[in-house]
């Protein structure tokens, strides 16, 4: 309808705050930052001239902590990084330890891991969807998305014993076998999801106000996406082929039939569409696997005390927010010598200033919503 937003392709250059400029702190206690992100914004009227992020309000130095934890123990801390895709973080750590130990993970464990990864991805996107709509001023989607997310949480709780920070993956497999009800529960979830998913389009995607708030906002070009190191739906919204599950497949992803969702818009709406379509792809993966869980062990035999050979190990996985890399430097001991988490949110946040410069305050909220920032993931 009254679509007027021009895509600001080249971020305008502004000088230092001058006459008539307001410097406003958004966050750390702000409803739209989903946590304790602190942005120092320079405003001219309603137009944003500059954004300076200020991080670290929940920095726990997880990397330093991991240096004193053994290879079995450090996995649990990573659940607390990006708490919305805790399983996938754990997966990355388990994979990197297995890579160092050269352990063959049983087929059953791999399938279980992929199933839980995809369920986590859906749950994460559901929460993002609700929270993003809430940022834009619509409260109802938040509650509707939690209805489906709750179903996933129940599945998690039943098998893993927790709802958010599960610590279910261990080096060599998973901690326990699946709960007997797992398959039935997942199928129930798929039925519910398919019954309710059209409401997402009715309530939000098709809404004219929503589309106008989203289209043309927070544009970032493919070159800038690569330069800023953005990954995940942010990169794919600009058409950059960046899904780690396709780029360098891990676990059993190379054998699965799913598509990498690519949109070429580069704006908030493209990122939104990518996430919505990714949920469908995750459902597709779950449907392929849920009836074909192979029998066998759920955990490979590993030694009681794990020692990674001297060397450097890197493994990246695709979390709900993008590429999570785990870089371990081992000196041959029981604990990592140095560990580095390349978190997706950190790089995605660095592109925020570039995206929003010259936009309005409302655009900041809309663009930040589609970046899907999880603050513990950025601060670590």
């Amino acid at each position: 309808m009254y679509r007027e937003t021009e895509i600001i392709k080249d971020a305008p250059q502004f000088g230092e705050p001058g006459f008539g400029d307001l410097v406003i702190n958004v966050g750390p206690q702000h409803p739209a930052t989903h946590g304790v992100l602190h942005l120092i914004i320079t405003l001219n009227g309603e137009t944003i001239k500059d954004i300076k992020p200020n991080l670290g309000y929940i920095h726990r130095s997880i990397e330093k902590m991991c240096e004193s934890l053994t290879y079995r123990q450090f996995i649990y801390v990573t659940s607390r990084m990006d708490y919305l895709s805790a399983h996938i973080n754990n997966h990355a750590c388990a994979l990197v330890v297995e890579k160092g130990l050269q352990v063959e993970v049983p087929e059953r464990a791999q399938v279980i891991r992929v199933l839980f990864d995809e369920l986590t991805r859906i749950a994460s996107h559901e929460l993002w969807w609700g929270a993003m709509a809430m940022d834009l001023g619509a409260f109802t989607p938040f509650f509707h998305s939690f209805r489906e997310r709750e179903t996933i949480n129940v599945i998690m709780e039943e098998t893993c014993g927790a709802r958010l920070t599960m610590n279910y993956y261990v080096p060599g497999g998973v901690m326990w076998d699946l709960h007997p009800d797992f398959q039935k529960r997942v199928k129930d979830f798929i039925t519910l999801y398919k019954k309710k998913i059209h409401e997402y389009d009715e309530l939000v995607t098709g809404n004219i106000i929503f589309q106008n708030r989203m289209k043309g906002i927070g544009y970032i070009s493919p070159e800038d996406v690569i330069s800023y190191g953005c990954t995940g739906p942010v990169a794919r919204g600009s058409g950059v082929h960046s899904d780690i599950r396709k780029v360098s497949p891990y676990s059993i992803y190379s054998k699965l039939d799913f598509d990498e969702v690519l949109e070429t818009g580069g704006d908030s709406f493209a990122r939104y569409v990518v996430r919505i379509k990714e949920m469908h792809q995750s459902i597709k993966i779950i449907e392929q696997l849920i009836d074909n869980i192979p029998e066998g062990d759920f955990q490979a035999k590993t030694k009681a005390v794990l020692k990674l050979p001297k060397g450097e190990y890197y493994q990246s996985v695709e979390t709900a927010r993008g590429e999570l890399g785990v870089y371990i430097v081992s000196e041959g001991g029981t604990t990592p010598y140095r560990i580095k988490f390349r978190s997706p949110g950190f790089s995605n946040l660095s592109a925020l200033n570039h995206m929003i410069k010259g936009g309005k305050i409302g655009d900041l909220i809309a663009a930040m919503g589609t970046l899907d920032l999880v603050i513990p993931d950025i601060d670590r």
Partner: protein
Amino acid sequence: MFIKDYIKDIASALKSLATGMKMTGYYFTHHKEIITEQYPDNRDTLVLAERFKGEVVMPHDENNEHACTGCTSCELACPNGSIKIITKFDVDAETGKRKKAIDTWVYHLDLCTMCGLCVEACPTNAIKMAPTFEHSVFDRNKLVKKLNEDGSKVRAGVE
């Protein structure tokens, strides 16, 4: 045509708004869809998954015996030091041999992150996670618990 596009725009916009309102209207009139749980009221019927990791407990059987030998592998496995095992030496009444046993199994619930690594590490399955979650107390010290009961012993045959 400008006017035609203009009207078309408005029509499609109104339609999209009406679609959303139809959906919310549906939920407004269909109270069966409500999913709220009324938590403190449904305590009696609340079923938690049996695997739910709420706190570490040490099951004792009817003879007040448990399976913990005091090997401290759980203490070593714990990533944040919420377990502290104080051992003592028991004298076996029949053979007269001195045997290592636990004196106090201290559990810091206030430090615990419910990762379940201690349960995994236990060689004798002496501890397990219990599906409880109402841990709030006014004094933090109350969260430091002694898991083995007074006068309890190691079950015979557990090594």
